[in-house]
């Protein structure tokens, strides 16, 4: 870690990491500024350097207005931000965040994510989370861990490509006068050049989706033309991109849903 051996030089390693546990480690009877200066001193800062970093993190995490409030009285969003400020006060190379947005409201979640994104420029961030859209939004590299074993490690984009394999497109078709012959549609779609397989996904209330798998890169234009020329209405046509969530389930096995055992660790940042 950061060029040091964890077992041989634990103190050096700790000097180079900042850690925010799931619940921010705050002392409720302390004031914000007092707490941050205590943590700063613990991490080895002192004097003018400590004051400079204190002002910097207060500014960066937007907690300057609660500087003299008791930590026990702060709202959840502020606590989270003070927790982040605490983790970056000694300017660590590596920042480890454990579910930083758990229990926040949507606005706070967005603010926290933006903050994490902006911190990515200065620190390598290791983000451990179960909230996968968060990973899609903020991270570059993803590590999926299943029951303590490494299941996958790659960039978000590569993972999506890899899991999808062949390109697949979702086509939603409806008949002109209410009724539709599925078999006919399926047959017609299969005739389009490049299509390898057509599956009927669902059909209810005149909404009929077909999943079309193809080998070739672009069949969407041909699919649309085929549907319209056959006299049906084309309601929707979109690439069935797999969300990270589906990849996650695919990799970890959908049958076990014990979330604790699975963990997506995402890395963002410079190195």
């Amino acid at each position, binding site marked *: 870690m950061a060029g040091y051996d964890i077992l041989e030089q634990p103190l*050096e390693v700790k000097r180079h*990491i900042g850690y925010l546990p799931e619940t921010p480690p705050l002392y409720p009877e302390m004031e914000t500024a007092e707490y941050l200066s205590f943590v700063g001193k613990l991490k080895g800062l002192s004097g003018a350097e400590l004051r400079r970093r204190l002002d910097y993190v207060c500014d960066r995490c937007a907690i300057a207005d609660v500087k003299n409030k008791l930590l026990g009285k702060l709202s959840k969003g502020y606590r989270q931000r003070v927790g982040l400020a605490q983790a970056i006060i000694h300017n660590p190379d590596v920042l480890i965040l454990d579910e930083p947005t758990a229990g926040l409201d949507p606005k706070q979640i967005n603010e926290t994510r933006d903050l994490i994104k902006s911190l990515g420029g200065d620190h390598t961030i290791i983000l451990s989370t179960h909230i996968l859209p968060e990973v899609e939004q903020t991270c570059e590299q993803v590590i999926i861990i299943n029951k303590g074993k490494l299941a996958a490690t790659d960039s978000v984009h590569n993972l999506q490509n890899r899991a999808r394999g062949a390109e697949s497109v979702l086509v939603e078709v409806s008949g002109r006068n209410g009724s539709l012959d599925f078999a006919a549609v399926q047959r017609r779609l299969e005739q389009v050049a490049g299509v390898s397989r057509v599956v009927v996904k669902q059909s209810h209330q005149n909404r009929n989706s077909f999943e079309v798998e193809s080998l070739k890169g672009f069949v969407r234009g041909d699919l649309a033309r085929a549907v319209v020329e056959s006299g049906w209405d084309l309601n929707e046509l979109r690439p069935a991109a797999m969300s990270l969530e589906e990849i996650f389930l695919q990799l970890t096995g959908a049958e076990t849903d014990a979330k604790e055992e699975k963990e997506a660790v995402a890395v963002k940042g410079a190195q």
Partner: protein
Amino acid sequence: MRNVLIICRKELRSYFASPIAYLLLTMFALIFGFFFWNALGYFVLMGMESQMRGQMIPMNLNEMVIRPLLSNVGVVGLFFIPMITMRLFAEEKRSGTIELLATSPIRDIEIILGKWLAAVSLYACMLLLSAVNFAFLFKYGRPDWKPLLIGYLGLLLQAGALLAIGTFISTLTKNQIIAGAATFGVCLLLWVLEWVSGYETSTWAQVLAYMSIITHFESFAKGVLDSKDAIFYVTVIFLGLFFTARSMESLRWRS
């Protein structure tokens, strides 16, 4: 050393930011004041009796007031010490702040020493309150100050030993009440162990009596600095803190 002081300052701040410190200090001041008043009342009565009978009973403030009072403080301390130490680690484990300390570039032993020093300092504050009472003795009488000083040293050593045990017990649980109750039980047991020597003279009884925290205080209360007793307390302090360090180390793989 710097880290020890940082932790110690923070712990003292926690004691005095919450009602704990004030509650303990007030209760101790009240109880000690009552003891002092009693001891002095008895002393004055003895003085008047000796005058009325016209015969001189040797009157000595050190022997008749200070010594029993110091012994009393030692016993009262047994009840206060669990309340001082129970939160030291249990609270941090419950609230998760122990993770902050564990991931900071600071050694376990520095955390432990800092916390223990803060506990000893709070106890010293309590003793300081009792010294206010003794100041009156010096104003109106002429007691010897050296035995009093040694008595205080003994009290600090004795408390240091019990506080080290309490600190250790506090690392074992997340629950402050459990930590407090267990520490109280151990303190009480270490006190009453000495009773065995009242009816038994076998080797076992002697060993048990020797382990009693109270027996080692008697020489200090008399104003005698006996290295044997001082070493006993220092050993218990060392052992207590050593076990605390072991227990903290095991937290890393237990949790």
